[in-house]
């Protein structure tokens, strides 16, 4: 019997329709690129343009998709922590962009550079996070124009996992590359990934597109992402949203490949409901999750890696809502086969705030999902036929070597969630989840050790940042 589960049954014919209708939009409506530099590239390659609107023929899109690699590796400062994207594993990065921190009291405050550094330490010591965010929070206590330098320097020095480059302006993208160059020299190997958001509907912001161009020319991977607020900046229907965002993302991908065929790309589309009573943006919903599932199918259709949102929630505290929404978003991504998720740890309230306690809780969610999607082992040893036969109906498996050998690794072990019996739970000093998370957080930060770095390199990086900041 065919199970009619809306989010997993995609006929290729539906994907064909989304693709063909996207091409129709690319040809008929075009995409607006308010950047003379981008327009020049399109014009020089013979694209039809009207003012800032560029029109795309099918061949251009197919050619571009043809040069995007199916997988690529981003080097980490510690080679053991380099990551392969598109190779089947699920890669996760923490929150991206929130300007606020929400404390356990419910108070909201501006995020600072010290918060950035604390999050870096958590990323470094995280068992489930694979790479850094370029704006884990937006620090409010340093000048805006150079905040990307402070964030990136902190990230490089406090972690040795792969980096994300800034896309807040062309200059910020160039700065990101200069800092990477200090570590890896002049290289075309991927050493950082960045996020370029389009501006729905059917356009890009100049700074985003110019950042995209900087990274593409340098052969550095870019997540090209389009999303609309359903019913506000795009159609209220998921089908319409998919078409409009797919067209926009494809146009961005096309630009990257025109500049440098083979530039690694992570394909991204999203779509979030408009809260129809207020006009607000809802980030964690079944509709968002449905986008994730379909978008993963589209990425497979195109043969390129894809990105989804992460553990998002509309909640402002570590409650059932936060857990439920985060789990729905992440589980859908994990089961759909997403390659990369941003915002996987720490986010509250529609991506506007980060929480240290939620970060710890999300790590349990992410860790358990990584375990969930790991293929089940079906080896001779795993079937354990000899043992089953030997013990028959009266056996106790606890005292067997087979169990003994695996008892520390066979199961996912949550760090925060409780598995205690009721009486023990009642006796717990810290019964509430956020309080337990606070304790884990304190332990993590106090046991943190800065990864090794060549002192010369460190000085060089610091000097670059100081010079750029005019210190």
């Amino acid at each position, binding site marked *: 019997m065919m199970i009619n589960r809306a989010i997993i049954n995609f006929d290729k014919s539906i994907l064909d329709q989304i693709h063909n209708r996207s091409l129709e939009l690319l040809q008929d409506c075009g995409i607006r690129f308010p950047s003379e530099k981008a327009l020049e590239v399109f014009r020089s390659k013979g694209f039809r343009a009207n003012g800032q609107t560029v029109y795309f023929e099918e061949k251009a899109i197919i050619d571009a998709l043809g040069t995007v690699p199916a997988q690529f590796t981003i080097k980490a400062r510690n080679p053991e922590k380099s990551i392969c994207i598109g190779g089947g594993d699920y890669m996760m990065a923490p929150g991206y962009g929130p*300007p*606020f921190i929400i404390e356990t009291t419910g108070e909201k405050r*501006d995020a600072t550079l010290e918060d950035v550094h604390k999050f870096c330490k958590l990323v470094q010591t995280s068992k489930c996070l694979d790479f850094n965010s370029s704006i884990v929070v*937006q620090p*409010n206590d340093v000048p*805006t124009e150079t*905040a990307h330098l402070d964030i990136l320097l902190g990230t490089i020095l406090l972690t040795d996992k792969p980096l994300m480059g800034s896309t*807040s302006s062309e200059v910020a993208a160039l700065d990101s590359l200069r800092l990477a160059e200090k570590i890896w020299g002049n290289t075309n190997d991927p050493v950082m990934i960045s996020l370029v958001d389009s*501006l729905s509907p059917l356009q890009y*912001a100049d700074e985003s597109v110019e950042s995209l161009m900087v990274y593409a020319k340098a052969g550095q991977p870019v997540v090209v992402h389009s999303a609309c*607020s359903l*019913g*506000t*900046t795009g159609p209220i229907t998921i089908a319409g949203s998919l078409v409009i965002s797919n067209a926009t993302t494809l146009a961005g991908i096309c630009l990257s490949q025109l500049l440098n065929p083979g530039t690694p790309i992570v394909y991204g589309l999203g779509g979030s409901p*408009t809260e*129809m*009573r*207020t*006009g607000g*943006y809802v980030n964690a919903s079944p509709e968002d999750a449905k986008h994730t599932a379909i978008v993963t199918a589209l990425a497979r259709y195109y043969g390129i890696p894809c990105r989804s949102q992460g553990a998002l929630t509309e909640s402002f505290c570590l409650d059932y809502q936060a857990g439920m929404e985060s789990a729905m978003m992440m589980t859908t991504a994990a089961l759909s086969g997403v390659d990369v998720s941003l915002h996987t740890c720490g986010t509250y309230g529609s991506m*506007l705030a980060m929480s240290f306690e939620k970060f710890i809780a999300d790590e349990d969610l992410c860790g358990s999902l990584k375990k969930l999607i790991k293929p089940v082992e079906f080896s001779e040893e795993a079937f354990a036929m000899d043992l089953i036969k030997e013990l028959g109906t009266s056996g106790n498996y606890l005292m067997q070597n087979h169990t003994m050998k695996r008892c520390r690794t066979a199961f996912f072990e949550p760090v925060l969630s409780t598995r205690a019996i009721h009486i023990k739970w009642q006796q717990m000093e810290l019964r509430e989840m956020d309080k337990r998370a606070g304790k884990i957080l304190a332990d993590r930060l106090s046991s943190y050790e800065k990864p090794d770095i060549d002192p010369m390199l460190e000085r060089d990086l610091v000097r670059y940042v100081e010079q750029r900041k005019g210190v």
Partner: protein
Amino acid sequence: MTVKEIFDAVLAFDEATVTGKTQAELDGGTDIDAILNDGLISAMDEVGERFSSGELFVPEMLMAAQAMKAGLAILKPHLSAGQSQSKGVVVIGTVKGDLHDIGKNLVSMMMEGAGFEVVDLGVDVESEAFVKTAAEKNAQVIALSALLTTTMPSMESTVKAVKEAGMATRTIIGGAPVTQAFADQIGADGYSADAPGAVKLVKELVA
């Protein structure tokens, strides 16, 4: 036919009926003030209340406003100077460096719905453009939206520019990262966390 039917048609988001009935009342010699105030404007006040209480959804509120405006357009040539249909002029925009416009558009549409003449300058708007347009249009209020902490300083410079220009125009600000404390700090005349609040604020400021 009664003015009440115009009121009901606005609440039913029924533009064709609103324009039809408005024209019919006008032709029938009904007092223009009654059509305007008891028909169209009181209907929008009711829409505003139903929206604030969560009964109406945004698209419904906007369609009601559109129906109301269509009725208003029919009355317009017949209105005397004293029967000005506008409650005041508001210049609105998202500040320099910022391209987020969903919230700003919502605020703008709701102000229009509430009877204000709104001049929407779009996104990425320079301080000078706010000042210049407000002076040209004789605006009572300049409304600034920002969604990035990094562009909130543009609000400060715009508020400063308005003051330096010696204008009587009041400034209000809003957007997800903006707070009352920030409004106080930069000397803006008002802050609202949402669109209905912004409308209320403007009503108070022009009263």
